[in-house]
């Protein structure tokens, strides 16, 4: 069981699934913070509107989605072969490919490379995968200073905060909060909150790092098996700077990022930019293949990270999770995320994709509350550019969690579990169902007020009546009315109440 950590409003959010509180608890600080909820809803509405506009102009959007999911399925079906092909091509082009089975191994590999380079500082292109393996704290503890170069990541790093979104990591921070962080950390007490001036402050801060730090770390949006290329898309150009000035580049990429062919980018880039930021094309799309003499980093490493991915690959039903291209359209569309923001998910991957990805990466040892953190409204599946049927996987993971939990003594007597077991017996025979209805009506009568409504219920029911009344049970069920009406048809007689 995951330990419940004391969590107050001012604490740094816990994005470690092993330590984070369960979702319903972790959501409370945000639900009680109207400013934060406003920041999140506003930011999401802006992205959503841009996305809707640009998706509408693509008449072949559904065909693109189908093509993208087919490409990813092909890559996943032959993942071993495509990864080996990538390794070969990348090596031929002058890169060094490393394989990391888990987070610890990936961190160790990266630190070893940095030690070899005698690097005590490193600049970073935005990479959620590095947050997944908790790279920054590890490097800092080993004496390597890390400098984020993505504007949002700078805000979070300086503000000692954590990402709440995978594309817009500082989505929950508003302009005046950014001003406060920059003023304090950059020593600029007179800084205004005008976006232009805030950006200029970040640029000044960054420029020094770009010119002085010779080692960089990146993630990858895609790896191309056919050519050995790595692809990064970004909005600000800081990634491009990291790919130009440093001597050494280390790319950390999940093994599911590989695409078979260069041409597959045609489909993927159209979908990614529109889904992620509501743009026809991302402002910067960088591709590099190994090392090019006299141009860009002269030493290049790729660390291919498994960290639970191959076990997801092994499951026929859940494999589609690995199609994800990290566009975040699902979290932008999600009515739950809209209320809670990202930190409540206790993982670097929030929202609907996080609710299915995190528990799987954790082999269901942690984050068991996440598959239940959804009303199953289906908005995520509708917008997903690679057609991941997130509700279906949520339900499947719920079954796995329930199978796990129902064997435990604590859950055996949990009111919800007792109720569902009882309901199953009741639903197996109509006469038992009808008896339960009568008993339920009598039981609920105790709680029903004169106006015919229930205002307060004990136990699990109390979670309903905290904000909602419940109409008292009507005197007559439908089937009683039907029976009294005396019109039971021939079909009804054939199917007596004992039908199974």
């Amino acid at each position, binding site marked *: 069981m995951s330990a419940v950590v004391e969590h107050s409003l001012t604490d740094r959010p816990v994005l470690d699934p092993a330590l984070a509180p369960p*979702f*319903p608890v972790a*959501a409370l600080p945000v*639900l009680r913070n109207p400013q934060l909820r406003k920041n999140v809803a506003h930011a999401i509405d802006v992205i959503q509107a841009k996305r809707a506009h640009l998706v509408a102009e693509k008449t072949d959007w559904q065909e693109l989605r189908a093509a993208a999911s087919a490409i990813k399925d092909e890559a996943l079906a032959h993942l071993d072969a495509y990864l080996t092909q990538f390794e070969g091509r990348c090596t031929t082009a002058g890169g060094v490919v490393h394989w990391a089975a888990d987070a610890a191994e990936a961190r160790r590999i990266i630190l070893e490379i940095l030690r070899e380079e005698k690097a005590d500082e490193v600049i970073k292109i935005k990479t959620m995968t590095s947050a997944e393996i908790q790279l920054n704290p590890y490097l800092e503890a080993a004496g390597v200073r890390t400098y984020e170069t993505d504007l949002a990541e700078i805000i979070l790093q300086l503000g000692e905060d954590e990402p709440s979104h995978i594309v817009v990591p500082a989505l929950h921070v508003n302009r005046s909060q950014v001003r406060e962080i920059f003023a304090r950390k950059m020593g600029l007490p007179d800084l205004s909150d005008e976006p232009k001036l805030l950006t200029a402050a970040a640029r000044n801060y960054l420029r020094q790092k770009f010119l002085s730090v010779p080692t960089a770390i990146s993630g990858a949006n895609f790896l191309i098996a056919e050519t050995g290329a790595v692809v990064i898309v970004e909005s600000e150009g800081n990634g491009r700077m990291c790919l130009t000035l440093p001597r050494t580049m280390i790319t950390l990429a999940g093994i599911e990022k590989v695409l078979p062919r260069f041409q597959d980018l045609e489909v993927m880039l159209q979908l990614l930019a529109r889904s992620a930021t509501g743009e026809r094309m991302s402002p910067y799309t960088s591709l590099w293949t190994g090392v090019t003499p006299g141009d860009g980093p002269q030493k290049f490493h790729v660390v291919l990270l498994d960290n639970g991915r191959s076990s997801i690959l092994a499951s026929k039903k859940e494999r589609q999770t690995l199609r994800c291209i990290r566009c975040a359209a699902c979290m932008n569309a999600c*009515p*739950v995320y809209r*209320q*809670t923001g990202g930190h409540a998910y206790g993982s670097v991957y929030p929202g609907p994709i996080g609710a299915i990805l995190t528990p799987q990466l954790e082999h269901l040892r942690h984050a068991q509350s996440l*598959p*239940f*953190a*959804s*009303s*199953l*409204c*289906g*908005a995520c*599946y*509708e917008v997903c550019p690679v057609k991941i049927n997130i509700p*279906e996987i949520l*339900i499947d993971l*719920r*079954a796995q969690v*329930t*199978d796990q939990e129902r064997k435990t003594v604590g859950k055996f007597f949990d009111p*919800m579990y007792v109720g*569902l077991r009882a*309901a*199953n017996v009741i*639903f*197996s*025979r*109509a006469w038992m*169902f009808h008896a339960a*209805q009568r008993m339920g009506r009598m039981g609920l009568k105790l709680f029903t007020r004169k106006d015919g409504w229930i*205002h307060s219920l004990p136990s699990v029911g109390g*979670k*309903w009546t*905290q*904000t*909602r*009344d*419940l*109409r008292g*049970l*009507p005197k007559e*069920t*439908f*089937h009683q009315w*039907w*029976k009294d009406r005396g019109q*039971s*048809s*021939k*079909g*009804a007689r054939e*199917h007596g*109440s004992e*039908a*199974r």
Partner: protein
Amino acid sequence: MRASLFITCYNDTLFPETGRAVVTLLERLSVEVEFRPGQTCCGQMHANTGFRGEAFSQARRLVRMYQDAEAVVIPSSSCVAMIRDQYPGLFEELGNEELRMQFAAMLPRVYELSEFLVDKLGVEDVGAYFPHKVTYHASCHGLRGLHLGDRPMRLLAKVRGLELAPLPNLDRCCGFGGTFSVKNGDVSSAMLAVKLEDVLGTRAEFCTALDNSCLMHLGGAMHRQFAPMKTIHMAQILASTQSQPAEVLA
């Protein structure tokens, strides 16, 4: 035309007036309605809570009960979505070939109420009269699960006297989600508050839908807040006529 009504467990228990309205409506449209008293639940609650084995036995029970029905009409989008989207997976995993065949043969004859009216009977004007201002809430399962599209709106547009008030952010969930509403009660309540703002903003007298589950959620909050609006299942609006007005609960 003979239709077998699957009322669903919660409509039978909590919203019998919806069932009565479906019977009135279909009989007015010359459909012979039958009701099989052995029916209980489609298994959705168990399936969505992770009780797969239990969901399977209820699903099997439903298929065996209705396999010979000419048409099965269900006044609940989410139960129809359960049958269409989740039964195939359950039967694939836990069922046998015979059950899968029975299900495949039955599935095309399972209709959500608005589908049955518009697609099977080919009617949009059901001769209803409901002189009130109404807003329509598209439940997630109807909208994205069943792709009901504009069928509900077409039916409402033909109701005499009805003034339709468009609901902003129509595609946004009300936060019910079955056991989600209690397992994540605080998040669910926050979603409900946002939805309710849009719904009450229409200043309609009634909020209607094809799922009583969403309406129970919205209506429960309306009652708690003394809001000047009531919820009503669309079947009750469509059944309503000048001589026999809809049953509306105080």
